[in-house]
């Protein structure tokens, strides 16, 4: 079975390669329309409570794909987090690119148009960055919303604990509450990752090179969120000693993730099609596997299962294993099938932690069904320049060089740098020479009125002075 599995993968890889050669210039990735929801709620303020109303909004309906709509419907409160996430991505992108010719400008949301404009149609660096940062922002935002309590369907991480003996015999809802009472519900940022994969990667089937690029960049965005998580511990044993210690993960500020992604943007890898597969290096260790399906005796074994064996068209949020990218920090140089063989100890292991929640119908065909999507994350992109290193899981990849972004070109979705502010003294891209592409610039003096020297009194008075400052602004012609 393993051999045939590898064979099928190879066959598929060849097919992909062929396809991508043919369709290299085909259009943008199909999974990017959802970015439009950033602008959906704009006139009125979005709060997580009003999600019911927001869902009725036809603009959302048209923005989302069918699977995305289902995800939003099944997870009340998630829409608010998605809107926040999309806006977070836009503002972070604009912050990171404020000094560059392309400044991550967005267009007014129009039906059928992409939020970031036609630049997304090209597989250039900027596009790669957009994909990475939006995927990262959704992950971050969903994880935050879970810890804010605005999404009620966030999952519990039951992987580290034996389950209550009674729990398995109860109906779903009772079992969940019992689990909470028995072993708590330690936060898992994992829901953010799982949801991001489900939601963001819809439509990117990895069939052609462009879709592979999108998938890779989406994964890279999530990998950066994961890499920036920090562990915190607190001792609370006898008299506060460390006989009992509790640890948890903490998300970094999104600005830090944005900085890291920007650094990867500057060192992005241009890739081309390849025949070799990214094989099982990222097969994920499935967390805790209970050997008896009833799970009442809580025997615990650590099984290693290839992630792909469980991936299904309908991969659900309730999967308790983490996305493989979380484990995939050691590069992906593993080639060949023997590793997959050695990891596939339990081809028919029952789903370890299938939670009793509606929708966990996913894994009924574990390991046997090998549809198209099973390996959509299992590919290896080769650098365009063979002397370069192949891109790692956290690298941003692109397919074609970026345009200069100097002149307005609506057909390509480029706004140009006319009217942009620049820095006269800088020698970098934000300097007026580079920013204005040699067209020259204008000097203006403006007077800015700001509140300053404020004094506070608790409670509840604030007094400020108004300060006028003169500022010099340079604008590209």
């Amino acid at each position, binding site marked *: 079975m393993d051999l045939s599995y590898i064979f099928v993968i190879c066959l598929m890889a060849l097919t992909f390669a062929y396809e991508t050669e043919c369709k290299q210039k085909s259009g943008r990735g199909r999974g990017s329309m959802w970015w439009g929801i950033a602008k959906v709620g704009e006139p009125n*303020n*979005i709060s*997580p409570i009003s999600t019911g109303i927001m869902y009725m909004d036809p603009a959302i309906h048209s923005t989302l794909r069918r699977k995305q709509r289902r995800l939003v419907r099944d997870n*009340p409160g998630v829409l608010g987090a998605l809107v926040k996430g999309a806006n977070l991505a836009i503002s972070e992108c604009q912050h990171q690119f404020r000094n560059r010719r392309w400044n991550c400008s967005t267009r007014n949301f129009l039906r059928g148009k992409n939020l970031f404009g036609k630049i997304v149609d090209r597989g250039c660096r900027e596009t790669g960055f957009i994909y990475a940062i939006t995927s990262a922002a959704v992950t971050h935002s969903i994880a*935050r919303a879970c*810890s804010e*309590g605005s999404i*009620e369907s*966030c*999952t*519990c991480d039951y992987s*580290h*604990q*034996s389950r209550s*003996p009674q729990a398995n015999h109860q109906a779903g*809802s009772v079992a*969940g509450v019992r689990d*909470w*009472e*028995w*072993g*708590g*519900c*330690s*936060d898992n*940022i994992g829901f953010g990752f799982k949801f991001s994969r489900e939601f963001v990667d819809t439509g990117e089937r990895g069939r052609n090179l462009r879709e592979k690029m999108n998938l890779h960049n989406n994964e890279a965005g999530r990998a950066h969120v994961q890499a920036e*998580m920090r*562990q*915190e*511990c*607190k001792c*609370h044993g*006898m*008299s506060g000693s460390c*006989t*009992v*210690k*509790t*640890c*948890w*993960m*903490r998300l970094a*500020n999104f600005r830090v993730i944005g900085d890291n992604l920007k650094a990867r943007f500057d060192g992005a890898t241009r890739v081309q099609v390849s025949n070799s597969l990214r094989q099982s290096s990222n097969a*994920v260790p499935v*967390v*805790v596997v209970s050997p008896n399906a009833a799970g009442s*005796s*809580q*025997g*615990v074994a650590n099984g290693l299962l290839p992630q792909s064996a469980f991936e299904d068209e309908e991969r659900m949020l309730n999967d308790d*294993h983490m996305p493989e990218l*979380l484990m995939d920090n050691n590069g992906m140089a593993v080639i060949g099938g023997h590793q997959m063989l050695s990891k596939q100890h339990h081809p028919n292991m029952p789903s370890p932690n299938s939670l009793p929640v509606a929708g966990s119908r996913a894994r009924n065909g574990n390991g046997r069904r090998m549809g198209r999507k099973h390996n959509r994350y299992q590919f290896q992109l080769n650098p365009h320049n063979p002397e370069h290193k192949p891109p790692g899981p956290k690298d941003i990849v692109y397919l074609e060089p970026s345009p200069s972004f100097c002149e307005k070109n609506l057909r390509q979705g480029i706004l140009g740098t006319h009217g942009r502010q620049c820095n006269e003294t800088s020698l970098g891209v934000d300097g007026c020479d580079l920013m204005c592409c040699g067209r020259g610039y204008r000097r203006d003096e403006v007077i800015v009125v*700001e509140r300053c020297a*404020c004094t*506070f*009194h*608790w*409670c*509840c008075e*604030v007094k400020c002075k108004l300060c006028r400052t003169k500022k010099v602004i340079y604008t590209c012609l």
Partner: protein
Amino acid sequence: MSGTILENLSGRKLSILVSILLLCQVLCFLLGGIFAPVPAGHLTILGSLCRENHARQNDTNFFLYSRGDGACKQVTSEEVDADALKLANQIVHVFQLPLPRENKILEYTRWQQNLIGVLQVEFGYDSSPELHEPAKELQLTIDMRLAYRNNDDADNDWKLYAHSVEHRYLDCDTSHIGPTETLYTCDMIPLFELGALHHSFYLLNLRFPLDSPKQMNLQFGHMHDLTLTAIHQNGGFTKVWLFLKSVLFPFVVGIMVWFWRRVHLLQRSPALLEYMLIYLGGALTFLNLPLEYLTLGLEMPYMLLLSDIRQGIFYAMLLSFWLIFAGEHMLIQDSGNKSTIRSRYWKHLSAVVVGCISLFIFDISERGVQLRNPFYSIWTTPLGAKVAMGFIFLAGVSAAIYFLFLCFMIWKVFKNIGDKRTSLPSMSQARRLHYEGLIYRFKFLMLATLLCAALTVAGFIMGQMAEGHWKWNEHIEIQLTSAFLTGVYGMWNIYIFALLILYAPSHKQWPSMHHSDETTQSNENIVASAASEEIEFSHLPSDSNPSEISSLTSFTRKVAFD
């Protein structure tokens, strides 16, 4: 004097007893490792921002909450950024716990025992040149209000649990330096500790009052995320723990009653070591007493303190016991009287007493004060932290002195035994076998104690390692922590259980006849044959002590006078 059961037990019976106890030990370990979840669970909660009406700012019966009917309208961080004053003095950080999960509204149960909250602060400064690196000890003033609600109450029916304005000192690091804003991430600060998790829902409202005349919170730029981590004991762990206690409790009580009856059947008053054993059993019984059942019905905020005290008493008793055990096998013969703690051991025990008292004072000044104000922590002020460290240092020094002293005493006992061993060959066969057996068993007990102590330390380190390697998708079984806790707890119970059995006075009457010792195989006979030698001791002028517990004592004592 007929000696103890340990001396009179045959090797076979002893090995059976030891293997049964070892089996119980393994069961205790597995109980924690397989059935129990991790000892503590936690929820990480991100603060929601609510804008507040100034008129109600001083009303401590008014609460803002983020979920349920009548929840406040939340302010997004973009709105805060957009405001020129960052909505200073208008924002309340709201934490409502527990969080909903899997489409269910979770609530705390009383099985979850206690709740500890820590806060993590992120803030940003404008990266303007006049603002420098923040000082290392930034004082943060927080107005904290904790409210509770039960599951049958209405959504807005929050009742005040505690209110306090507290100062915390922050230690912050730069996490990002940007052109417009520099971000700082701070070490977590302790926020509150509740000894009783009696209600279903809790709500925390935090305000950071900005006040120019009082220089309050002015050093802080713009507050970003506030993350509260609420740690509670897992219900499953409490259940397993209470089960273990409820099972061990009657056994230990039973063996104590048996032991005490046996002692009283003798025609003498109990010896010091017997008193120590019964005190030790008493301390263990107090520790085993499953008082936690009461918390299911009553609100007992002092449970954290009480469990510290119970453990403290037990460990103090155990340490004292070891010291006296070693001392009783020494040959100090300052008076012919029965040795009591006061007459002989007060100097030895002073280290234990000092250590325990300093830990007790520390605990009272931390968890004792928390009974009045759950937001209090001695660690939050520099002075308090120094005082707390002082007490802990004192306890540590006492512990070190104690262990050095204990090692010295044990070394002395072994040295005595070794010295006297040289005179063994000159004794008669029966007597020699008898003393060799005694020495062997004394060493055996020392070995058992050492093994228990080593296992405790090793388990502790193992637990720390497993935690240290903890990643968020680890497949290391975290239940090791639970297994360590139940295993160690069971181990000391079994240890004391074994002591009570083996050190109970034996009722075997030594036969008056003197058997031929070369042919006897069983230890009983050897011991019995040694009985005739016993008379020798009683002829010694100094040996007027009728209450010595083991013949080893009398042996060493006699040899000392040789």
